[in-house]
């Protein structure tokens, strides 16, 4: 049951979720999620498909009830916060009602909120002023998405939740969307957005919560997450080195050798580099590179998956072939 939790001291008006669990039959979609989001923060919920992002968001919005765990949205239950008009949501799936103009549809939604924004200004903020008199059935995918954004925005909510807002968009559409989003985040709203585009989380969030297989596997600034995994890569040119020997160097997690080119993925690149030079003084063209969020993501999520997938025959065959 979702019950009210007192906001933490120093975080009035924040969002807190504690020990969330949610199963659909056999599928354990969310398996113990804890998260707190401070007022005014822009947080990315990052993870692959099936990580439990949408289920978590649905619970924060009161669309799903957790099997166990507690949620507080500005000191209220999720349903209470929605009823008070404190929440605006842009859900992952959804079309617009037809036979209305963009401006009429947004006005219709504005009427539902107690302190909604001026419709004209909202349309401008969402970048849909030019199409405000067009019927909703005659919009492109990118335009519809920005109208849905205007719908989430027009109620002037304190918390804005966007579930993969750019999933269906092309590169240009994504750029336009985030351009309109930037002003909103700057206006002091609390924003939670789910994405599986790492560059979006990196570029637009103050903080990244990484989810995999129904759990939070990392939580911090994009830089902190990279630091936590320490996924730096050393590249070097080196003759006659064997992968086995390289991977046993201190600080190295995995090693690849393609002829003379050597790639070392490191948990501790400083130690690894010293050990490499001590053992192979001939190593040259050395390059140490900080890991991308993409690499952090793969490392964190595959670590978590390994024990359970280990038993499957396909996986065993794959291991044997290596």
């Amino acid at each position: 049951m979702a019950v009210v939790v007192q906001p933490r001291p120093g975080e009035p008006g924040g969002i807190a979720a504690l020990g969330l669990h949610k199963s659909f039959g056999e599928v354990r979609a969310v398996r113990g999620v804890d998260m707190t989001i401070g007022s005014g923060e822009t947080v990315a919920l990052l993870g692959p498909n099936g990580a439990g992002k949408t289920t978590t968001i649905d619970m924060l919005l009161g669309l799903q009830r957790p099997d166990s765990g507690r949620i507080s949205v500005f000191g209220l239950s999720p349903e209470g916060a929605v009823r008070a008009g404190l929440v605006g949501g842009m859900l992952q799936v959804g079309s617009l009602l037809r036979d209305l103009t963009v401006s009429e549809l947004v006005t219709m939604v504005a009427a539902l909120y107690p302190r909604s924004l001026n419709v004209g200004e909202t349309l401008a903020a969402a970048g849909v002023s030019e199409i405000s008199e067009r019927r909703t059935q005659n919009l492109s995918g990118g335009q519809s998405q920005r109208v849905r954004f205007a719908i989430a925005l027009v109620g002037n909510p304190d918390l804005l939740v966007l579930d993969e807002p750019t999933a269906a968009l092309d590169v240009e559409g994504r750029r336009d969307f985030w351009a309109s989003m930037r002003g909103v985040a700057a206006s002091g709203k609390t924003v939670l957005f789910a994405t599986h585009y790492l560059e979006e989380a990196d570029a637009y969030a103050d903080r990244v919560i990484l989810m995999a297989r129904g759990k939070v596997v990392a939580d911090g600034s994009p830089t902190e997450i990279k630091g936590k995994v320490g996924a730096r890569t050393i590249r070097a040119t080196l003759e006659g080195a064997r992968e086995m020997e390289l991977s046993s160097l201190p600080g190295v997690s995995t090693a690849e050798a393609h002829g003379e080119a050597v790639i070392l993925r490191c948990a501790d690149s400083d130690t690894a580099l010293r050990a490499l030079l001590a053992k192979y003084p001939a190593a040259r063209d050395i390059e140490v590179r900080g890991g991308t969020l993409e690499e952090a993501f793969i490392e964190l999520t595959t670590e978590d998956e390994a024990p359970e997938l280990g038993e499957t025959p396909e996986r065993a065959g794959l291991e044997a072939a290596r």
Partner: protein
Amino acid sequence: MTALAYARYDLLRVVRNRRFFIFSIGFPLILYLVIAGSNKDKTIASIPFPVYYLTGMTAWGSMNGVVSGGGLISLERSLGWTRQLRVTPLPPWAYMASKVIRGYAMAALTIIFLYLAGLAMSVHLAISGWLLMTGLILVGLLPFAALGIMLGHLLTPDTLGPALGGISALFALLGGAWGPLGQTGAFHDIARALPSYWLVQAGEAGLTRTAWSSTGWIVIAVWTVVLARLAMLAYRRDTAKN
């Protein structure tokens, strides 16, 4: 207040959807003009044919309007729109109310067009007769409003058309909207237990200027309560799923 503001735009959508508008009002209207026109001087069950058929077609048409209002929930649910509304402060009852308002607006338009057609067929009722008939029709539509909301939560958009059409037609047929099913016998007894029968009887009330018997009021009340209860269960079952 919010329900009204919301319903206003919902109504605008009906008027703009010309095909829906024309078909749902045009069909009973054309049937009335053709069939009542060719039986102008006959009587059914001691009621002048144009009067009987006027209430028959009005009952059927307005019933369609009200049921389809609720049926739209199914469509909006499949679009993901009802989910979107669930993250706004609009309470579920207000959403359903907007669909009932929309259904009644369609019914009102049907009633107006058919009354005009009735006047053209020289149907003459006293003013109080018209008012009583209209009032009874509006009350008699209540169970169908609940039926629409129930079906809107149970059906998918691809089954919606045939299901709503079929159910309305069955109620209309058994209630005697397309012609009486005899004054005695099993069908007559069944008919008297149906809300659509009493909708049609609103026409006789218009002529005699006496409202339904107590049986009529009870039948309408029981159907309204039972269908509203079923609609509520269908709503709960539907929202529990997602």
